[in-house]
């Protein structure tokens, strides 16, 4: 199979020892988008959320305090960089590490908020992300066991898909879904997004969706229907 039928032609590769980064227009766009949003988050302030006061006609402003702002901004930048890395890595194990890091810092971004509902949602997301770690690494390990490599550029050359590769892919997808908290786990994420701190919430959503899009590419590399 030719990898260019998925994301376009390979524009370049960066070999870092065993880990090879590769750039197709698809990977490059998502890498650039992740870095651009990360840079924007690094220089942005947070909004003051206007909420109606219960029992009166007044509004109140909910702000992010300075200590919380600094912590969440740091975690958001780490998340953005991990997302950018996950977009261009050509190594399956490297990708799983990036996804795990994204899961950890996403929990941190919301766990820093001192609101009970948000902390409850973060706790539930944390449980899902921790549970997701097992199928994530287990899936990658099964793909390694089935193919003898974790290099996507090597796996794409294998002309067949064994049942173990397919099973590993399913586990891998379940792990990514758990780590990023996408559907069917999205209900808890919506609760997390009720808190102020728009730039930090962006990176949670950005990392989830970009990782899912990249995962589709990886699954199509491992599983060849033709």
């Amino acid at each position, binding site marked *: 199979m030719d990898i260019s039928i998925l*994301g*376009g032609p390979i524009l370049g590769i960066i070999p870092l020892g065993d880990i090879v980064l590769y750039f197709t227009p698809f990977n490059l766009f*998502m890498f650039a988008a992740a870095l651009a949003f990360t840079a924007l988050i690094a220089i942005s*302030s947070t*909004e003051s959320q*206007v909420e109606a006061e219960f029992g009166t006609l007044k509004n109140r402003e909910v702000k992010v305090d300075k200590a919380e702002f600094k912590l969440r901004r740091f975690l958001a930048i780490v998340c953005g960089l991990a997302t950018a890395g996950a977009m261009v890595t050509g190594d399956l194990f490297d990708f799983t590490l990036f996804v795990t890091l994204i899961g950890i810092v996403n929990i941190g971004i919301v766990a820093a908020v001192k609101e009970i509902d948000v902390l409850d949602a973060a706790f539930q997301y944390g449980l899902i992300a921790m549970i997701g770690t097992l199928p994530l690494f287990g899936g990658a390990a099964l793909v390694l066991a089935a193919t003898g490599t974790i290099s996507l550029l090597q796996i794409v050359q294998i002309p067949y898909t064994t049942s173990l590769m397919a099973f590993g892919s399913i586990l891998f997808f379940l792990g990514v879904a758990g780590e990023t908290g996408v559907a069917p786990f999205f209900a808890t994420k919506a609760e997390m997004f*009720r808190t102020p701190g*728009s730039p930090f919430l962006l990176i949670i959503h*950005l990392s989830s*969706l970009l990782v899912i899009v990249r995962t589709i590419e990886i699954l199509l590399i491992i599983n060849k229907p033709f």
Partner: protein
Amino acid sequence: MNLMANILLNVIISFLVGSVLLGLQRKVMARIQMRPGPPIIQHLLHTFKFFLKESAFPKTAAMPFYIAITAMLCVIWVAAVIVGPVTEGSLLLFFAIYAIHKIVEHNAGSSSGSPYGKLSCVRAVFSAAAEVPLFAVLIIIYLKTGTMILSNIVTYQNQHGALLLSIPLAALMFFVLILSKSPYSPFAITKGKDIVSGYETEHFGLLRGYLMFSESIAWYMLLWIFLTVFIGGLNPVGYLIGMVVITAFVAFINALTPILNPNHSVMTQVTLAFIGIVGSVILLLY
């Protein structure tokens, strides 16, 4: 043609055609509802008007994030034009662009500090859970054609006939996605009138101009992708006729259906996605 000139020409065409199509949609809806409706060029005039009006920024907004996010929306839809009509690149890349559109839609709402924007933001997160499964249509197309590259998909259809006939449920899924992005649609929960204008509520002047410019290109691109992927090999007149027909059909649906509440909207879309995926896989196997 020079690449830059080609990009510029296609961006201008997509903006103008997209604006007029959105105006046509309002006109058709109005006539169905026994109203005269605005002129067809109203969306285009509004966009130009907002570019010329004074901009105001809420004091509660997250700066410069609040301003940059609207410019980012323009950039990603211009990128979509480059991926689509200009280079006929990867459908997977178009999916990535759509995913970033969802993120921008979400954060344009929350960055202003407005409660209406915030509700739109939360609804955008919900709706992503429904719209992303609809985009699973890409995998069905890949399974059918063996490629994600638009030019190759068109070539495949020239040899084997339109995909609309061989994977109709996948086409239906993509149509539901188009419907969900149209103004006043039953699935347009992020811009429901119960939350004023949703994520656009606190964007004035130039920023609203950017949003409307992007909306026009987004509408054109979604229709372009649908026609290219499921019919393929059309000439410019064919594209125009196809876009007008789909827009009028969408307007007909929107004029006759109320907006659903967020939970019903998401569950309806997810159900249609499930039917589409399972049905298409069965059609592919037999």
